[in-house]
């Protein structure tokens, strides 16, 4: 028995690798290889005509571009605001959906449509809502007397940016709510009952039991959501195509415009590499900070 153990282990790991191999090969073809190719292209001036090696020229241009620096700042700002809103609303939504009141099952279903339908379709709805002449929002604000004439939400830099954020939050919140709801239901009721018996208020129970218990889920959803929001393409593209005057141009939009819309593959690839590097650094820092915090506060 003791002798056959290493052999059993090795055959076990061979079998495991065999099971993983198809997925790994597939991702190598569709993700890893294109990624390496993107890195290579970023050192060239590739366009439809052809390509030649240009060294770091693409990166130097980006490093000296004030516009690109603004885009990076804007993207992080976009991510930070949008993810914060999604997490707060998601937690709020999950708590509401978890309350044991009549109609709960129906509410849970009604929250989900923005998650289920194609993002592009939801954006069409918002595009129409934001319309200044004929849209509901502008109409309602005029009716309430808050604004005098039609207001084109997507025509001004600041309002376009925050309108795009509202739509992004609208798309992202339902899924986060459902995952948080699942987490809430995983919290043992014994804890709540014990606290209740001790006379703890509902708010106290939320802060001292619910939040710490679902903290791991919040943490991983926050990171995932941050990455998705950083890379969010369709919403901005459909609402504003990055305008007006670059007000909503995030890194992903800038990359798409450069590489696909103007066929500058080399400079576009350099932007893509910047995205990957920034996100990797962000994810790394996020996890390091988290580990430190966990150690300091010793929560598990």
């Amino acid at each position, binding site marked *: 028995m003791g002798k056959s153990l290493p052999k059993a*282990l090795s055959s*076990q*790991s061979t079998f*495991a*690798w065999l099971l*993983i191999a*198809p*997925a790994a090969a*597939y*991702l190598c073809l*569709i*993700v890893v*290889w*294109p*990624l390496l*190719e*993107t890195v290579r*292209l970023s050192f060239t001036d*590739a366009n439809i005509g052809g390509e030649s090696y240009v060294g770091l020229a693409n990166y130097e241009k980006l490093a000296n571009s004030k516009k690109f620096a603004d885009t990076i700042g804007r993207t992080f700002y976009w991510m930070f605001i949008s993810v914060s809103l999604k997490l707060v609303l998601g937690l709020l*939504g999950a708590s*509401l*959906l978890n309350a044991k*009141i009549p109609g709960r099952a129906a*509410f*849970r279903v*009604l929250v989900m449509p923005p*998650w289920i*339908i*194609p*993002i*592009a*379709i939801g954006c*069409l*709805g918002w595009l*129409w*809502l934001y319309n200044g*002449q*004929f849209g*509901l929002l*502008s109409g309602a604000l005029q*009716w309430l007397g808050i604004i005098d004439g039609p207001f084109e939400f997507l025509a001004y830099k600041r309002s376009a940016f925050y309108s795009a954020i509202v739509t992004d939050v*609208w798309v992202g919140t*339902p899924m986060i709510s459902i995952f948080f*709801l699942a*987490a809430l239901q995983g919290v043992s009721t014994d804890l*709540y*009952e014990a606290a209740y018996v001790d006379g703890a208020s509902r708010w106290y129970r939320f802060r001292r039991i619910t939040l710490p218990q679902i903290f*791991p889920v919040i943490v991983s959803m926050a990171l995932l959501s941050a990455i998705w929001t950083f*890379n969010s393409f*369709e919403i901005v593209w*459909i609402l504003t195509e990055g305008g007006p005057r670059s007000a909503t141009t995030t890194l*992903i939009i800038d*990359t*798409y415009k450069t*590489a696909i819309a103007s066929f500058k593959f080399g400079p*576009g690839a350099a932007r*893509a590499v910047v*995205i*990957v590097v920034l996100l*990797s650094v962000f994810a790394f820092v996020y996890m390091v900070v988290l580990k430190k915090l966990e150690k300091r506060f010793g929560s598990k």
Partner: protein
Amino acid sequence: MMDRYSLLEKIGLYIAIAIFLTFVLLPFFEMFMTSLRPLDHLRSAPYKFWSDEFSFDAYSNMWVTVPKLGRYIFNGVFIAGAVTVLAMIFVVPAAYAFARFEFKGKAVTLSLFLAVNMFAGAVLLIPLYRVLRTLGLLNTYFAMIIPGAAFLVPMGIWLLKSYLEKIPKELEEAAYVDGASKMYTLRRVMLPLAAPGLVVVGVSVFIGAYAQQYLFAITFNQNSDYMPLPAGVFEFIGYQDVVWNEMMAASLVGVLPVMLIFLFMQRFLIAGLTAGAIKE
């Protein structure tokens, strides 16, 4: 006892839920109202909240304005379905391996899989375009299915792995003791037990695939026969005019099949996520 709410708390809860749902459902409500109005009425300023001329005309005219609309609706569901099948073929064995076996490099491999989440399709478009062109797959269904599935595989593996870890190991061990092979155990013992988890992961992957078709559809496919609804619906935007009422009608009708499927599945989904997605 402790779940009992006072009347005031109840009222507060319902108001909060109403506000939350208003935000979530407002675009759908306005899309529906828009689809009922004649076009010239939509273009009247100031904005009117009510119309005297509601009609369902847009729902019959839309098939004429965009003749391939039915095809687009079908394509959207078909592509999402194909993406789900393809993704699950890769997800199931890998998730099983991560859930059940100890091997060198397991943690690293899993993190590498999850790191794929960092790359949106938009970052890799240029080389992907070339891969698909080399394989001769541009402007086919495959141009949307093959890249679409790749970005859903990591999430699928992660979800299914957490679900499988909840299934007691003893059941498999019993099968081994009885002399069953590993493959047989996977097929005949694990898969049936994991069925609810498979459904949850499958539905999640399908939702992801259905929601995110736009980018690959507008970039890798020019053939209108293969276009899914999220790309095809933009045909209502003409050179002169946007046929808003019909576009909204088409959007609502187009997502209806998936909404109905989802309505049947949603209980399962929430229950499954509860069982599977929670890390202890």
